[in-house]
């Protein structure tokens, strides 16, 4: 049994590395046939990973729930792949594969730590995927989306104002609404509205005035989040806003000014807010504040170190000794049981996901959707960087989840929705030329 786990740990590493490698070779291949073959191979790897994990899960931790869950994941992957081929044959299958890969990596880790959380995650991901199939249709029908500029801003700011007021009252709680037992954090919704607002505003008008107005609105979003102590999301918004302005205007001066202002604001925030200082102290020397704010990061580092290059082996580590291991610190748990090489492969897949989104964005001709795609993609990439950087003590911890991998209903839904939007834009890219002409005829 121990031996089986030992062999499995190298197989896992082999699988994820091949998967990541194919992501990049895909970007280099030009012939459709070869691309299709790569996609097929990736799907085989997904199933091999699931099979290997299933054997170990059922040996180590047999329960009816786990057995059903594994069968459910098996079906979910299959149905998602088939459904995309049937409904949206022009969708980016690489994007679908990457999404399923990251979800699977997350499932494998969460199920080992907490089966009931894995069940919730599964239900949410499945439901989210079903709903996500509607999004391309909505995008196609709802031509008015680019025109709702100020509605996006209003919704975003009101939601964050709510978060802020509640944070003041209940001491740092995040505002969320509950739909059928699934809680959705407001800040996750605002991730979408802010990008839509900026895309709508900047696609219409790229003058200095317009950029300034956009910047002010974005800054209000960021500030509200900083005041609500949600530094991670604030940074995600900040980076996304800068990237969008840069892409929209093509002027390097704007992002440069933005980064300078951001740096100045960070220094200000460090002196003004105790919770910012705390994070920095815990980053600089977690062991000096081991009993308080340094505890989490210290545990994460022990876990990453214990894993070494090849991991302790599935079910052989102690990921449960890491605080919030299924959420903010899931990367540390992965590093522990699957090792640094596996974790690096997961990072490479995340990076290829971003490059793919950038490529898709470039292929779009409608300026509004171009900006939406790059904005959402940048939010994704920033989130990955912040959470992995925080857990590995490369940057201060900002308390943010690893998209698709971490447990967390609203984060999974918003990421699946985000990918569905990008997928929808990609599917519709051929129609765009026509849409543009029609839009201009409208106005």
């Amino acid at each position: 049994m121990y031996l089986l786990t030992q062999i499995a740990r190298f197989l896992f590493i082999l699988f994820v590395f091949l998967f990541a490698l194919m992501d990049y070779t895909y970007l280099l291949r030009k012939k459709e046939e070869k691309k299709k073959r790569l996609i097929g191979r990736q799907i085989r790897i997904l199933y091999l990973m699931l099979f290997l994990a299933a054997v170990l899960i059922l040996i180590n931790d047999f329960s009816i729930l786990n057995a059903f869950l594994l069968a459910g994941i098996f079906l979910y992957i299959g149905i998602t792949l088939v459904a995309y081929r049937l409904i949206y044959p022009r969708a980016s299958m690489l994007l679908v594969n990457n999404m399923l890969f990251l979800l699977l990596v997350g499932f494998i880790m969460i199920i080992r730590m907490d089966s009931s959380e894995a069940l919730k995650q599964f239900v949410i991901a499945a439901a989210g995927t079903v709903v996500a199939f509607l999004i391309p249709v909505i995008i196609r029908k709802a031509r008015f989306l680019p025109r709702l500029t100020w509605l996006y801003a209003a919704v975003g700011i009101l939601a964050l104002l709510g978060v802020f007021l509640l944070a003041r009252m209940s001491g740092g709680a995040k505002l969320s609404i509950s739909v059928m037992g699934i809680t959705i954090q407001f800040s996750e919704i605002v991730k979408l509205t802010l990008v839509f607002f900026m895309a709508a505003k900047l696609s219409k008008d790229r003058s200095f005035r317009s950029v300034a107005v956009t910047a002010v609105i974005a800054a209000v979003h960021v500030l509200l989040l900083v005041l609500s102590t949600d530094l991670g999301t604030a940074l995600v918004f900040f980076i996304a806003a800068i990237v969008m302005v840069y892409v929209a205007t093509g002027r390097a001066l704007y992002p440069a000014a933005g980064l300078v202002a951001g740096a100045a604001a960070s220094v200000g925030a460090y002196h003004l807010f105790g919770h910012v200082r705390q994070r920095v102290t815990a980053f600089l020397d977690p062991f000096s504040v081991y009993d308080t704010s340094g505890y989490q990061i210290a545990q994460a580092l022990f876990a990453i170190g214990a894993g070494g290059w090849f991991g302790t082996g599935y079910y052989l580590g102690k990921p449960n000794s890491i605080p919030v291991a299924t959420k903010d610190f899931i990367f540390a748990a992965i590093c522990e049981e699957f090792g640094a090489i596996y974790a690096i492969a997961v990072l490479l897949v995340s990076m290829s996901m971003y490059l793919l989104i950038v490529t898709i964005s470039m292929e779009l001709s409608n300026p509004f959707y171009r900006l939406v795609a790059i904005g959402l993609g940048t939010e994704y990439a920033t989130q990955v960087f912040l959470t992995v950087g925080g857990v590995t003590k490369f940057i201060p911890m900002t308390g943010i989840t690893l998209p698709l991998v971490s447990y967390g209903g609203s984060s999974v839904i918003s990421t699946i929705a985000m990918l569905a939007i990008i997928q929808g834009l990609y599917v519709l890219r051929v129609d765009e030329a026509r849409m543009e002409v029609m839009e201009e005829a409208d106005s």
Partner: protein
Amino acid sequence: MERELGEDIRRIMREEETGLPEKEEGPQLFPGLTDEGIGSAIFDEEAYDEEGYDEEDDLLLIDEDLLEEPDGDAKEPAGRKRKKNGPYLFISIAFGILFLMLIGHLIYFHVKLKDNILNSPYNRRQNAQAEHITRGKIMSYDGMTLARTETDDEGNETRVYPYANEYAHVIGYTTHGKSGIESIANYELLTSHTNLIDQVIGEFRQKKSPGDTVVTTLNAGLMDAAYYALGDYRGAVVILDPKTGRILAMVSRPNFDPNTLAYVWDDMVADPSNSQLVNRATQGLYPPGSTFKIATALAYYRRYGSFEGFHYDCTGELTIDDLTVHCYKGAVHGEETLKDAFAHSCNTAFSEIGLMLGAQRLTAVADSLMFGEQMPTELYSSKSRWSLSTSSPDTELVQTAFGQGKTLVTPFHMALLVSAIANDGVLMKPYLIDHIENAGGRVISTKKPAAYRRLFSENEAGALTELMRAVVEEGSANELAWRSYGVAGKTGSAEYTKSDGSIGTHSWFVGFTNPDDPDLAIAVIAEDGGAGSTTAVPIASAIFRSYYGE
């Protein structure tokens, strides 16, 4: 790849500086420019040859396909779309670099930072390893087993220490936390490098893998000699190889039996006067007594460049303010040079030197000799204390100059100082673990000696060695003279106030053997042992005799 990325970035920068404004107004400024012309202006065609091809270029390629599509809109020239690809490329590269930095950091963590983190005393995670691996052996360099784990028929494990009390502090314990080598090498002891076949066989027999063996630098013969020479005295002996920094022996008394520590732990900890667990060699803080005259002499040498100019007439006592300094046991040394004063450990002469130099120069020397600094060892250790400052009264200044005052040192610190003098002024980083083997004896990793810091210039080391030779040849450590191997050293008789208020004297000897090609650097302290020459010197003498086989 990196060079190409760099070039890409520079290319974008160029485009941003010059290309973009041009393109924005392109149709007006260069009406004759064709689509293809703009395309090749933006995209470096060379980037597409076979070698230079990478994914960022691929992003461009896709876009170039797009550009081929005719765009019928006159108000929105194709150039508008094209100019945006610079930012896309730039952002892709920026995020690509961020991700590669993350990966680089993760690799750096595992290569460089991991061991420090894992050895943190807060880390309780390694105990998980113990479920699959039997804790490895600890051996002396000359092949004696110092600690091993025995497993009975029911699989219960006992850690056995064959030498019991003798190695108690340096090997340490694993009950109630960990100390000594058991703590320093915990990670290695719980890591198994047995070959795969053995692991497979063990797996089928449901046996644990044997952990790696830690081979220390300790010399069992020297340990025996030091342990028995110290006898019943409380105190410590530290012996190093000055040329490599290998710790050859480290003994501390009183001690404990690590085999039975679990049973007596509660009583031991409950008794506040009990200090058996303290490793006096690295943690014990003592007044240095006359051994500190090495530092004072160094301060003189640094001030005047040689010892030649100093002459003093010792009358046996010297009065400064309300303090009268006496030489030890009321000796009167008469007319003397600095070398004589050092050899006979004349307190009044060194008081005079202290007054000549002042607090600032003495403090500068103390700082350069690692007072108040963390010792370069992973063992639990105390920092030596230095409290003299320019605002201290002269009485404290003179006392400090001959090693009383408020200065406190660890025996380990003194051993490091003399080992640096022996090694032409360079302190080698002291270490305890020579190499790691797997259970079958195959070497996994070997520690290499490394210089830690230069504490003395070569001239200073040579001059101090001369003084220390004189101590042996004509001074207070005369018992060690006329040995075939030669000894240089300094005695110390450090007065302290006992708990009942009376004055006691700790007996010190620090020095090294075979000054021309040093073998051993040693520090000996026997608590309440009287003058250095009466107790510590004979202890050192016994150790040397045993080592050199006389």
